[in-house]
């Protein structure tokens, strides 16, 4: 601003003395002589200064300075109004403060975002885990149900029919057969509509056999799920179940099948005394 002022003023000063010096001093003298005149009011002086226009040194200098003022004013107003963002006119320290605040805000929002993402991940994980646990529970329920006899089972296996016309088959022979089948990997067994489970017991009851208190009569039909290639040889080994039964005049037939259905069920029973020690 001040440089803007000085250059035109210096130029004026250089060129002025050549032509205007004498009139200028005259004008100044005239002005000075007009100054003391007491009758002139301020309003008259203003009118006199404005009209008629006189090219005096004072007027020129003031004009140059006012030109500078007007120029600066217009430039400043223009630069202030055309920048719609308030940041343009802001001072450096204000800008730094605004930047700091924005940084803080960004940081806060970033933290919040991380927290929320973590929470989301946890929720997703926990729901995944719950789903997985549920699946495993269902699977285990199926496995345990087959063992406990509470669900029906199907799969490859064998059917063994023991026809006992003479009534010589006793409970211990059937028990031997069951043991043999279990040793050969039988997974589900039923005899004449009674599911054989861990707690199954067999007793003799005149001319027939009771399984878990249910009396069953010949012919005894065993439905066994397991690997047929293991089960059948296990029964047929020399001195094994089949030979022993045939010695007692019973006829035994063993058939392999790709689909054995063991559908005799047993109610789930809550044990009275035994409790799981893992919980």
């Amino acid at each position, binding site marked *: *601003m*001040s440089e803007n*002022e*000085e250059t035109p*003023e210096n130029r004026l000063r250089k060129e002025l003395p050549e032509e205007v010096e004498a009139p200028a001093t005259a004008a100044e003298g005239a002005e000075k002589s007009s*100054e003391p005149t007491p009758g*002139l*009011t*301020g*309003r008259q*002086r*203003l009118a006199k*200064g*404005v*009209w*008629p*226009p*006189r*090219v005096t*040194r*004072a*007027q*020129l*200098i*003031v*004009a*140059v*300075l*006012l*030109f*500078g*003022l*007007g*120029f*600066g*004013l*217009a*430039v*400043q107003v*223009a*630069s*202030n109004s055309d920048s719609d963002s308030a940041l343009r006119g802001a*001072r*450096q*320290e*204000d800008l730094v403060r605004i930047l700091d605040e924005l940084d803080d805000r960004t940081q806060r929002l970033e933290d919040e975002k991380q927290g929320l993402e973590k929470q989301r991940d946890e929720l997703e994980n926990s729901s995944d885990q719950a789903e997985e646990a549920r699946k495993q529970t269902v699977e285990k329920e199926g496995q345990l149900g087959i063992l406990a006899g509470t669900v029906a089972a199907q799969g490859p296996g064998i059917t063994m029919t023991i026809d006992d016309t003479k009534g010589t088959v006793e409970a211990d022979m059937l028990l031997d057969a069951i043991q043999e089948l279990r040793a050969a990997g039988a997974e589900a067994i039923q005899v004449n509509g009674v599911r054989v489970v861990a707690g199954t017991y067999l007793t003799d009851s005149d001319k027939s056999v009771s399984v878990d208190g249910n009396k069953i009569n010949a012919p005894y039909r065993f439905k066994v799920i397991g690997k047929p290639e293991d089960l059948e040889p296990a029964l047929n080994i020399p001195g094994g179940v089949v030979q022993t039964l045939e010695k007692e005049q019973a006829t035994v037939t063993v058939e392999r099948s790709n689909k054995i259905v063991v559908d005799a069920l047993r109610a789930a029973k809550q044990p009275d005394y035994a409790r799981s020690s893992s919980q």
Partner: protein
Amino acid sequence: MIAVLGLVVGVVAGILVRPEVPAVVEPYLPIAVVAALDAVFGGLRAMLDGIFDDKVFVVSFLSNVVVAALIVFLGDKLGVGAQLSTGVVVVLGIRIFSNAAAIRRHVFRA
């Protein structure tokens, strides 16, 4: 008359040219403009009082501008630029008002 013409021409030139304000003088331009306004009002009052002197006007105009810019510059260096420029604007505003009051008394006799 010539002086008023100069002001008008300056405003028109500023609007038409629209120069980019250099970043160095940007903080000082508003203060300098206010200081120059103060000098102009002072000069007008002096003219109405009949004691106007062009030399005094030139010196007061330039020194006002320079001192105002200097104060803001110093304030910026001291870290109180915003407060100091506010102070300068307040002081100059008070002076402009008192000068305007004197001018009003001359022109309207009230």
